[in-house]
């Protein structure tokens, strides 16, 4: 080939030394080994959840409240309901705030110094350890109310949802082409109406995905609930009373000395994973067709 002759020296036929080839082989093996080592715990966690959890889930577990230690039977019905309740409270506060902040960033704060400040602060908030958020919700709600409450737990989780929702909403709105907004303005549609009915609507499925990401992230949170929702052995639907949560119950049961409770902790963990996966899956399914779907 003519190109070869242009090189000052031709090494193309020189054999790659055994050492270099061996090193290449060893590194490839090591990379495969790393993949196996990382997938191993994942398989083990899911395997154990299914193996230990399925046997312990029964009708009583899903419908009864906990029995005193030592007695067999009983369930986590109040904790499952409590988790859903606290998550609803959190979503009511966190989702509108997060979407609003996302809209501000993409529609008004693009490239401005103030917008960058908010964007940066959201990233900072995202990195705050969950236990710290618990302390703040404690100071904010529990101290002023005088006791642990579902509301305090909801506030803690809402604070954790906001930054994730803000950043994904912003990103999704930025994907909507500028021409679409301009088309609406050109028809005389006001800015707020354009933002809500055109821009946000187009990005709906992306925004929902962001909300679900935030939801899945806080659904299993335990640390911020320890001294906010606190846990409860009985049913509670009052905003200002301590409330059971699935994650709290798993924690309490896991570190207890009773076999029966350990069994229930596994069952609770399986339910928690199912709750997270199912809620994310369900909303994605709805978002992917008909009503909620944007043009993408």
């Amino acid at each position: 080939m003519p190109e070869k002759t242009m090189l000052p020296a031709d090494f193309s036929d020189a054999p790659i030394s055994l050492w270099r080839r061996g090193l290449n082989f060893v590194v490839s093996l090591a990379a495969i080994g790393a993949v196996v080592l990382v997938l191993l715990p994942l398989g083990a966690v899911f395997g154990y959840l299914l193996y230990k959890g399925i046997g312990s889930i029964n009708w009583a577990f899903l419908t009864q409240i906990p029995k005193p230690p030592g007695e067999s039977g009983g369930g986590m019905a109040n904790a499952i309901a409590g988790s859903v309740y606290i998550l609803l409270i959190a979503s009511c506060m966190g989702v509108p705030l997060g979407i609003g902040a996302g809209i501000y960033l993409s529609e008004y704060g693009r490239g401005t110094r103030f917008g960058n400040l908010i964007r940066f602060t959201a990233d900072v908030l995202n990195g705050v350890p969950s236990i710290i958020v618990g302390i703040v919700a404690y100071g904010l709600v529990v101290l002023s109310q005088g006791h642990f409450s579902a509301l305090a737990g909801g506030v803690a989780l809402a604070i954790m949802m906001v930054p994730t929702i803000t950043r994904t909403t912003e990103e999704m709105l930025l994907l909507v082409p500028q021409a679409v907004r301009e088309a609406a303005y050109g028809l005389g549609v006001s800015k707020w109406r354009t933002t809500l009915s055109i821009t946000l609507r187009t990005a709906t499925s992306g925004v929902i995905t962001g909300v679900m990401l935030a939801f899945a992230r806080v659904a299993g949170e335990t640390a911020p609930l320890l001294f906010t929702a606190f846990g409860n052995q009985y049913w509670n639907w009052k905003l200002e009373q301590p409330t059971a949560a699935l994650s709290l119950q798993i924690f309490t049961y896991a570190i207890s000395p009773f076999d029966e409770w350990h069994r229930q902790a596994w069952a609770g963990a399986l339910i928690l994973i199912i709750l997270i996966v199912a809620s994310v899956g369900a909303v994605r399914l709805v978002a992917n067709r008909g009503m909620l779907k944007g043009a993408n």
Partner: protein
Amino acid sequence: MANRALGAPRLTGPQPVPEQAVAAGSAAQVQSLINVGDSRRADAVFFYAMLACGCSVLALVGLIVYELITKSSLSWHAFGWKFFFQSDWDPVNDQFGALPFVYGTIVSSILALLIAVPLAIGVAVYVTEMSPRWLRGPLAFTTELLAAIPSVIYGLWAIFVLVPLLRQYVQPWLAKYLGWTGLFEGPPYGIGMLAAGIILAIMVVPIISSITREVMTAVPQQQREAVLALGATRWEMIRTGVLRNARAGIMGGIILGLGRALGETMAVTMVIGNRPEIAKSLFAPGYTMASVIANEFSEATGNVYLSALVEVGLALFIVTIIVNILAQLLVWTVTRGTPARSHA
């Protein structure tokens, strides 16, 4: 469908809106969009509402700082800097020193990174450079799945699976062959610093590997081709062509993993043993800053006790914030593309 027509193709850049999109929206519908309310005032209201939402993010961080500083002032005035260098934690006599917690947090996090970093980089290298194309998506997805498992479930698994495994097989083996280092001495409880480090490692691997993957993908393809054309083996190509260019971003990923490890609470609390002592051996139980808050906050009686716990929280907050900001900056330098590299 009218509302579908209002949307736009998922393309960035100046895309002409298809003509039928405008046509499909009925005249009545367009009219209804225009005629709602006094639009100028409504626009202003909407702007201020969104601005308020945006400011709420600032307010939340401000609130966190304010709460932590005011609630910890009692302890700060009582102990000052000594708080972080004393190791007696005695609620009965109102004497508080956070050194064992600081030590436990640092040691468990470093241990986690020592285990996680090689694994995470190995996974990232395999997924981006070596694996067959059809395997990339599933592998990336599966490692991300690790990040979706709640911390309390990791803790549960660690208590009943990992700890017995360590106690029966791993720790006796380590004590026998590496006991002379002094790091692996004492009775093998299973529970302790080693267990905490391992479970933390499992939890931070997905973060480090996903960011490493991201920055490795950002390295231009020509770099790889250039190195290969010089006759390099695949590993030499990865080392000189990819890893060297992505190292700032990888460092960022590692530091982000560190931030996660420092603040991680539940899984660590469940396996570290919760004893405020400083021991050289990794078999010994320890305590971390996050776990002491988790365990004692709701039972803390007395203002100084509570204040001391909040001060531990404040210290943890400051450290994780600094670590996270540093990591963000490092990742940006690679993915946003420093000029010299992005157009190589």
